[in-house]
C-alpha cells in the first residue's frame, strides 16, 4: 500500500491536459492594466488562446499577434515585431506595456526578441513616441519547453523583474496568487481584509468578471498597475500561493531585494488555509481575528455534514495544474476521500521532490498513483481497460467526455471550465472555497445517485 510517482510511459499525448507556454504568458498579460501582449508567432497561437480564455470566462480579451507568415519563417520575422509594436501603440493610446511573448516557431528560427526590444527602445520609441511611457518586455516561452503552467510562472517573474524597484520601505506584502479565477481573488482579498493586512495582490483579476453596463462601455481586463508591479520590490515579504505559478517571481524578489518569500501552500481546504493565515501572521505580526475563527467554524460545520456520511472512502481522480491538484488531493484526504490517481500534465522534474508529494509518498496508506507528463489517456485507459473504479473526477472541462462516457460524476475545477456556468465566479481557496468545493462535490454526487437510482432515497433524511 503506497503512493507511487512516475512519468507516463508513452512518448505521445492522447488528449492533452495542458496547452503550451505562450498560453500561460498570455493569461498573465491580460491581468495587467494598460497592457496588450504581442505573441510572436503564427496567428493561431493567439486566436485560439483568446478563444480558450473566452470559453472559460465568457469574456473577450485583447492580445495581438505578430502574424508570422511564410516569408518571416524563412527570412526572420523581427520586422513583424517592430511593425506590431508600432501599430499597437498607434491604435491603442492607453497601452503602456507590451510583453513580447515568443512561441516555438520564433524560438526555432532564432529571432532575437531581446535585441529588437533594444532597437525599438533606442529607435521607434524615442523617435515616434517620445514622452509616452512604453515598456517592452521580452518573454521567452517556447512551446516545446514546459507547459502553460511554466509559461505562467516565467511571465509573472519577467513582469516583476522588469518593474520591481526598491526605493522605500513598505508595510505591504506581495501576494502572488498563481493561475486562479476572479472568485479566488475575491476570497483571498476578503481574508486579507479581515486580518487588516495591506497586500499587493498579483494579479488583480476580479475585474475579469465584468458587468454588462447600460452605457455599453465595459471591457474585461485585469487591474494590476505599473505601480503595483514596481512596488513589489519594496514589500515586507512575498507569499506565493502556488509553487509552480508565481514561485519563480517570489524567489527572484528574495534574491534580488532580500524580500522574504513564503512559497505555498495553495490554500485549498481548511488545513492549507490555516497555514496561509498563520503565514500571514508570521509575516506581518497581525493576529488572526475572531471573525475568521467564526468563518472557519462555518466551513467546518458544513464539511462535517458531508464527510463520513457521503465522502468517506470515495475514490477520486484529479488532474490539472500541479498546485491545484495537490491542494485538492490534500483536501480530499481531510474529507475522508481517497484520491487514487493524480495527473500532472507536464514533465517538470521538480514534482518528485515537492515536499507535498513527498508527504503523500510517505504517508498515504492505500494505492495511489501520481503520473507526471500525463495526458487524459492515462485516466481513460485505466478506467476502460485496467479496471480502475472511480466515484469522482476533479478537473477541468477538457476531460469532460471521460466522465460522460464512463458515467462518473465530475466536478469541474481549474482552467478551463467552459462546460459549466459561472465557475470562475466561485473560489476554491480559503474557507469559502472549502465550503464551495465540498458542497459542489456533494451535490454532484447526489445528482449522480438520483440519475442512477443508487440509494437516492438516502437523501430523504440527513
Amino acid at each position, binding site marked *: 500500500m503506497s503512493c507511487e510517482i512516475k512519468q507516463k510511459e508513452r512518448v*505521445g499525448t492522447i488528449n492533452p491536459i495542458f496547452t503550451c507556454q505562450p498560453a500561460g504568458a498570455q493569461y498573465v498579460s491580460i491581468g495587467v492594466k494598460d497592457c496588450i501582449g504581442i505573441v510572436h508567432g503564427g496567428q*493561431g*497561437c493567439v486566436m485560439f488562446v483568446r478563444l480558450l480564455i473566452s470559453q472559460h470566462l465568457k469574456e473577450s480579451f485583447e492580445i*495581438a499577434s505578430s*502574424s508570422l507568415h511564410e516569408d518571416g519563417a524563412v527570412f526572420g520575422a523581427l520586422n513583424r515585431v517592430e511593425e506590431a509594436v508600432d501599430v499597437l501603440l498607434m491604435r491603442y493610446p492607453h497601452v503602456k506595456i507590451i510583453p513580447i511573448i515568443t512561441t516555438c516557431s520564433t524560438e526555432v528560427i532564432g529571432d532575437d526578441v531581446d535585441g529588437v526590444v533594444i532597437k525599438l527602445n533606442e529607435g521607434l520609441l524615442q523617435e515616434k513616441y517620445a514622452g509616452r511611457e512604453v515598456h517592452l518586455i521580452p518573454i521567452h516561452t517556447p512551446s516545446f519547453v514546459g507547459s502553460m503552467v511554466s509559461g505562467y510562472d516565467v511571465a509573472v517573474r519577467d513582469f516583476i523583474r522588469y518593474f520591481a524597484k526598491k526605493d522605500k520601505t513598505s508595510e505591504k506584502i506581495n501576494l502572488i496568487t498563481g493561475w486562479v479565477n476572479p472568485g479566488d481573488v475575491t476570497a483571498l482579498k476578503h481574508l486579507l481584509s479581515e486580518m487588516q493586512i495591506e497586500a499587493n495582490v498579483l494579479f488583480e483579476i476580479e475585474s475579469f468578471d465584468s458587468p454588462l453596463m*447600460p452605457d455599453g462601455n465595459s471591457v474585461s481586463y485585469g487591474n494590476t498597475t505599473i505601480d503595483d508591479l514596481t512596488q513589489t520590490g519594496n514589500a515586507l515579504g512575498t507569499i506565493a500561493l502556488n509553487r509552480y505559478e508565481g514561485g519563480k517571481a517570489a524567489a527572484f524578489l528574495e534574491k534580488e531585494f532580500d524580500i522574504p518569500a513564503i512559497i505555498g501552500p495553495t490554500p485549498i481546504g481548511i488545513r492549507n488555509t490555516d497555514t496561509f493565515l498563520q503565514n500571514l501572521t508570521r509575516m506581518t505580526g497581525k493576529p488572526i481575528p475572531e471573525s475568521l475563527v467564526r468563518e472557519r467554524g462555518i466551513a467546518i460545520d458544513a464539511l462535517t455534514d458531508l464527510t463520513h456520511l457521503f465522502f468517506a472512502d470515495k475514490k477520486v481522480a484529479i488532474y490539472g495544474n500541479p498546485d491545484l491538484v495537490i491542494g485538492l488531493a490534500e483536501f480530499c484526504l481531510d474529507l475522508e476521500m481517497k484520491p487514487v490517481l493524480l495527473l500532472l500534465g507536464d514533465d517538470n522534474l521538480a514534482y518528485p521532490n515537492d515536499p507535498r508529494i513527498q508527504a503523500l509518498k510517505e504517508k498515504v496508506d492505500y494505492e495511489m498513483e501520481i503520473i507526471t507528463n500525463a495526458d487524459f489517456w492515462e485516466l481513460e485507459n485505466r478506467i476502460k481497460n485496467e479496471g480502475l473504479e472511480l466515484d469522482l473526477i476533479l478537473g477541468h472541462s477538457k476531460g469532460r467526455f471521460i466522465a460522460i462516457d464512463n458515467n462518473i460524476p465530475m466536478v469541474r475545477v481549474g482552467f478551463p471550465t467552459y462546460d459549466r456556468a459561472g465557475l470562475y465566479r466561485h473560489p476554491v481557496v480559503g474557507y469559502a472555497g472549502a465550503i464551495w468545493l465540498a458542497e459542489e462535490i456533494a451535490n454532484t454526487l447526489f445528482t449522480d445517485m438520483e440519475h442512477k437510482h443508487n440509494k437516492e432515497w438516502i437523501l430523504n433524511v440527513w
Partner: protein
Amino acid sequence: MPYHEFECSKCIPERKKHAVVKGPGEDLTHALPLGYLNTIPGSISERGCAYCGAKHVIGTPMKDVIHLSHGPTGCTYDTWQTKRYISDNDNFQLKYTFASDVKEKHIVFGAEKVLKQNIIEAFKAFPDIKRMTIYQTCATALIGDDVDAIADEVMEEMPEVDIFVCNSPGFAGPSQSGGHHKINIAWIKKKVGTVEPKITSDYVINYVGEYNIQGDQEVMLDYFKRMGVQVLSTFTGNGSYDELKGMHRAHLNVLECARSAEYICNELKVKYGIPRLDIEGFGFEPLSSSLRKIGLFFGIEERAQAIIDEETARWKPELDWYKERLKGKKVCLWPGGSKLWHWAHVIHEEMGVEVVSVYTKFGHQGDMEKGIARCEEGALAVDDPNELEGLEAMMTLKPDVIFTGKRPGEVAKKIRVPYLNAHAYHNGPYKGYEGWVRFARDIYNAIYSPIHQLAHLDISKDEIPTGAGFQTAKMLSDVNLSEEVVSSSILRQYTGKYDSVSDLRQKTYPEFKQ
C-alpha cells in the same frame, strides 16, 4: 462604391482598401476590397493559422481517423473541443486528439523517431481505428522533419493501417485559408483513387465542403437519399477516410463551401472529369433550387420536386411566422468565409432582415464579390477585420444582432448587441428546411430576448416600469404587428424537437431500381 476608412485605422492607411461601402447602383467593377493578403501585425486581427485551417477545419471532421499533430501539445490542445462537427460514430473525432508532444531535445536532435513511436502508440491505444492523419506544425516544419517518410515506413511495417500526411504549418499563408488549400490538394494527390468504391445507384455524388456542423450533413444526406442519390463521400463532415479515397468514381461533385473546398472539386474535374455543381443548403429557395439542379443533372427532377413540396409545406408557415417579426431588423453578417455569400441575400429575402455589414476573416476577393453582389445597398464590407474596426462598425451601424464567432460574440455582448454563432451555430443545424426555421427561431430569440431589453436600462437614471413582473419575446415582437398576422391561423412558431438530427440516423429509405 467608395472605400471606407475606419477612424481607428486612419494610422494604418493600407487598411483603407480592405473595406468598402456598397453604393446605390454600383457594381463590383468600381471597387472591391483587397483580400487574402498578409495580416498587419499588431492589428488584433481575428485570423487563425494555416495549421488550424487544415487540421481543425477540414481534417478533423473526418470521423474514423486518429488525428495526430506533430509538434508541441499546444496546437492540438487549443484547437480541441472548440467546434461542433458531430458524427454518427459517437463523435470519435471530437473526443480524441493526438499530439506527438515534441520537446526541446526533439527540436535539437529531430523529432522523427518520436513521431514514429507516437504513431504506433496511437494505433495500439485504439485498435479499431486503422486510419490516421498527421498534421505538420510550425515547430516540426522548421526543423525539417520528413513526416511522409515516417508515415511510409510505418505503413510498410503495419500494412493494415493507412496514414495521410498534411504539411500545413501555422505560418503557411495569411490565414487558415492557406491550410484549406494545402489539405485539399494533399488529399487528392495522395489518397483519391486508391480505393474502388461500391456503386449502388445510377446517381452518384461526392458532397464536398460540408462539415456537419450540428448535423448539417446528415440533414442534407437525408434529402439525397430520398432522391435515390448515392453519396460516395462527404468532404469532410461525418466523412469516412476510406470513402474519401474513392471520390474519383462520383458522377458529380456537389460543392457547398466553395471557399474551403473548391480546390479539390477543381482537381477532380481536371483529373477525373467530374463536373462541379455549387449548391446551397441554407434557405428555402437556394436549397430547393439546389435540389432541382441535382435532379436535373441526373434526370430525376420529380424526386427533387416531391421533397421540395413536402418540406416547404411542412416548414414554410413556421419560417414566415418569424419573417413577420424579423422584418427590417439590422444584421451584421460577420462569418469566416463562405457564409457571407451563402446567407447575405437569403436572410434578407426569406427572413426580412437587412444586412448592414458583411465581413470575412479569411475569405478571398472572390468571396467578397459574391457577398457584396448579394447584400443590400449601403452595406459595409470588410476584409480581415480587427477588434477596433469591429467595435467601430457596431457602434456606427447599431445592428440588432450579429452573426460571428464565439469570442467576438463576447465583444458584441458588452456593447449590448446580441450574437449568434455563425461558425458553430446556436441551436442548429441550420441547413435544410427545418434547419432554416431553427436559424430564424434563434435570430428571433436573440433579438427579442427580454434580458437583452433589460440591458439597455439604467436603474439610476431611466424610468423603469414597475408594473410588470415579466415580459416574453412575443410581447415584445408582436406589439407593432397587425391583428391579421398576430392571429393568423396559418403561421406558427417552430414546432420541431431540441435534437432534430438523431432520429435521421434510424430512418429507412425507399429502394430505387438501378
